């Protein structure tokens, strides 16, 4: 979560076109993107998959 935007000057001491593009972005309305915790879902997924495997074995032994 660092600020990636930084000005880089070229050999003539001017901003490059990309830096102007960055500056354009900093003038526009902000957007937030956040990722929440996922490990709990992953855990449940793991349990589900185990159950599926055990069920599958059960059915195969029955047949």
């Amino acid at each position, binding site marked *: 979560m660092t600020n990636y935007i930084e000005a880089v000057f070229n050999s003539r001491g001017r901003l490059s076109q*990309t830096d*102007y593009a960055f500056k354009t*972005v900093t003038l526009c*309305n902000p*957007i*937030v993107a*956040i*990722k929440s915790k996922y490990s709990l879902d992953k855990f449940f997924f793991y349990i589900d998959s185990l159950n599926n495997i055990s069920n599958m074995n059960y059915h195969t032994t029955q047949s």
Partner: protein
Amino acid sequence: MAKQNLNEDDKMSEQLSKIFIVDKSLGLAGCGLKTDLKIVVKRARKIAKNFSYIFGKQISARMLITELAYFFQEFTYSSSVRPFGLCVFIIGFANEGPDLFQLNPDGDVFYIKANIIGKKSNHGLNFLNKRWNKDIAYEETLFASFFSLNEATEGRLKYSDIELAVIKKDVNFKILNKKEIYNHIVNFELLQT
């Protein structure tokens, strides 16, 4: 703000949305020149469609961002064109979990957990740095996003200006409508300001 009317029909004009659906569980949000954003969205959808046509499954966020990064970088050295004035977030859901990427105008890709881009993003970023932790839950995520936007806009955040999109496991990328967003904001009592 709590007493704002839900019917915003009296607004003179409405801006183009900044969040787009690329594929079922793949979304894109961009900050910058909106006309450039339309071109990028069109390109992203084309890449996703081509991939699903050839391989029969949806493209992952990681592959899509790689392709888009090449597209962006091409515009930094080609003659008679300029780089896109855009920063793009791409969000997707793979088997390992949610993927969130940031693409900068120079074609630089970052795998991020949380970030804010745009005007006065430093204020929002300070708030986000305090609130965010690796065990953040879904409701807290919404709370952090609303309040970091509020910080960035210096407390002048209107619910009618907010767009919200959510992606979950086994649920398609969904852009929430105004009523759903309003309900979320009421929960956080943000409107009392």
